């Protein structure tokens, strides 16, 4: 099976916040990490290669420093990587991102399966996977929690949806977006990490992937951020201390009051 896994470098969101007094963003040296869902995507790719044979290419679209996540992918065991990087990609929203990534998939060529994370934690949009599927005309399979099998050009998966799980059989090629819990990602060994650190990372520009400039970066992005602000802060409310009996009584009263509303 020829597999492409899309991974993204994201700021570790827990450290990004707005200072409520000055209404500015505070980013105390926010570290960059691999989007947590994409580790599951990589791991699933590796497991499918173990089960069905084939090749895995990990791609990311981002600035030069995004090579970091590709090194992680190499250390985990993917066969090839590519960094999609070009000034023309800057300012991409999900539509332009899925365009560039789908062009990257085309460049890899003859791909059976694209795997992405369910969503990227910097935006939580969960749109890039479906976008790639729609662009390429691949089957769209979101929220995949298990790959049961693949044979004769079909794949059978389980999807974790609101209220239940759906087992579905689908034609390949397909795009899977995977949820946490599909697997436990492996930790690359120190040796492999060292090797990956010195690996040559191929860079694909807009021209290399045959991208139409009108569809990439800001030009190809219908949405933009108009304004940012701090969410309403729920400042801590009433705090109770005391004997367990008292507190349990107070709590029950509160709950019954609220239920009555």
């Amino acid at each position: 099976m020829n597999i492409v896994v899309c991974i993204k470098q994201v700021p570790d969101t827990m450290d990004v916040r707005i200072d409520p007094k000055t209404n500015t963003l505070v980013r105390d040296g926010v570290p960059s990490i691999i989007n947590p869902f994409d580790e599951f995507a990589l791991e699933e790719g590796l497991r499918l290669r173990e089960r069905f044979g084939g090749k895995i290419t990990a791609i990311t679209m981002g600035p030069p420093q995004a090579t970091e996540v590709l090194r992680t992918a190499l250390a985990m065991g993917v066969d090839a990587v590519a960094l999609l990087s070009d000034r023309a990609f800057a300012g991409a929203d999900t539509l332009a991102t899925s365009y560039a990534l789908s062009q990257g998939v085309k460049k890899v060529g003859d791909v059976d399966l694209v795997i992405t994370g369910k969503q990227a934690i910097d935006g939580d949009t969960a749109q890039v996977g479906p976008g790639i599927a729609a662009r390429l005309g691949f089957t769209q399979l979101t929220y995949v929690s298990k790959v049961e099998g693949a044979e004769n050009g079909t794949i059978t998966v389980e999807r974790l949806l609101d209220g239940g799980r759906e087992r579905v059989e689908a034609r390949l090629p397909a795009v899977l977006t995977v949820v946490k819990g599909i697997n436990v990602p492996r930790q690359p060994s120190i040796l492999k990490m060292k090797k990956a650190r010195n690996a040559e990372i191929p860079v694909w520009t807009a021209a290399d992937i045959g991208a139409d400039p009108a569809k990439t970066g800001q030009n190809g992005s219908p949405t933009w951020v108009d304004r940012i602000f701090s969410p309403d802060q729920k400042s801590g409310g009433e705090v109770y201390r005391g004997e367990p009996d008292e507190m349990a009584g107070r709590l029950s009263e509160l709950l019954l009051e609220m239920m009555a509303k």
Partner: protein
Amino acid sequence: MGVTILIDKCVGCRVCVKTCPFGALEMRNNKAVCLDSCTLCGICVSTCKFEAIVVPERQTAPEGSLDDHRGVWVFVQADGDSVHHVSLELVGEGRKLADELGVELSCMVMGNGHVDGIAGELSHYDINRIYTVQHPVLESYRTQAFVEAAAHLIREYKPEIVLIGATSTGRDFAGGLATVLQTGLTADCTNLGVETETRSLLQTRPAFGGNIMATIKSSRHRPQMATVRPKVFAMPLRSEKRDMEVVKVAKDLSEESQRTRVLEWIPVREGVNIAEANVIVSGGRGMGKPDNFAMLQELADLLGGAVGASRAAVDAEWVDYSRQVGQTGRTVRPSVYIACGISGAVQHLAGMKTSDTIIAINRDPDAPIFSVATYGFVGDVMEIVPRMIAELKSRQGKQ
């Protein structure tokens, strides 16, 4: 490409450098410079008091393509005859937007045998028109067929705004549809508004795990698409049947060309769907062991709610992942969220802090959960929860 720094206006205050979430701004010779890692998110622009940062001009919309789009539409998600409440919530909100823009509110209904039943239910709400596509291939939701039918309706009848519930189905549908239509889509909005002169939809949503709110526009494309989580907007009133125009649209679809076949639907045990629950009783590492979750279930049952969990409890395999609340789990917005033995890490807060009322029980008075709790109780869950269950039982017994 990147933002442009107007050197004359930049005073070298470094505010932008500190605020860029991507580390794409640097100081050189006391002026800010923009690096390749700029994503043009525009966050620095709004933080610079000296108006020294500008984002490059956006392309204008293709000629004449905006004005021929009119009206607000809601995608109707249904299970059999029963319309998902988020679709009705969007009907309520869509009505307001439509009134502000002076246009009609319509719904799109795709399905097979249940289309008439769904239409009947919708006629109890303030909707001008519904567009229906009825076909055996649309019997139950499947991405390809629904996107195909919806794209056909939208190209034919040209709405300016399309609202979709951010359920797992809705998000699956919206992502494919927006790409096919090559238009803007904003996920998981928590607030919507319109700018009447430009007819822009103002789409506000949390970003960076809920630490920041962003208002997003996609005014140069039509339709402007947004998904909204369940329970963000109130249910509109159900009235007597009203006049509602039904436009039946034919669309050729074939089963052979469908790329998926659903083999089985395995519903989760009742009461588990935390995304829908009005009351959530969540447990964390502080619950100590898996058996103690039984008591949270008992409490949840008494309150007609569901049990949730922190990642620590899920990672310890005390609770199934489908109940995890937070950044890598589900985002919930119940009326009451009760956090038992949960410290309140940012990633957990990201999934629950917009709940109407938050109750926290934790023995550590400095636990961060107390900073978002409406009511905090400093104490041991093992002592408080069983007493509470007993108390509730006896009081409910009396009523």
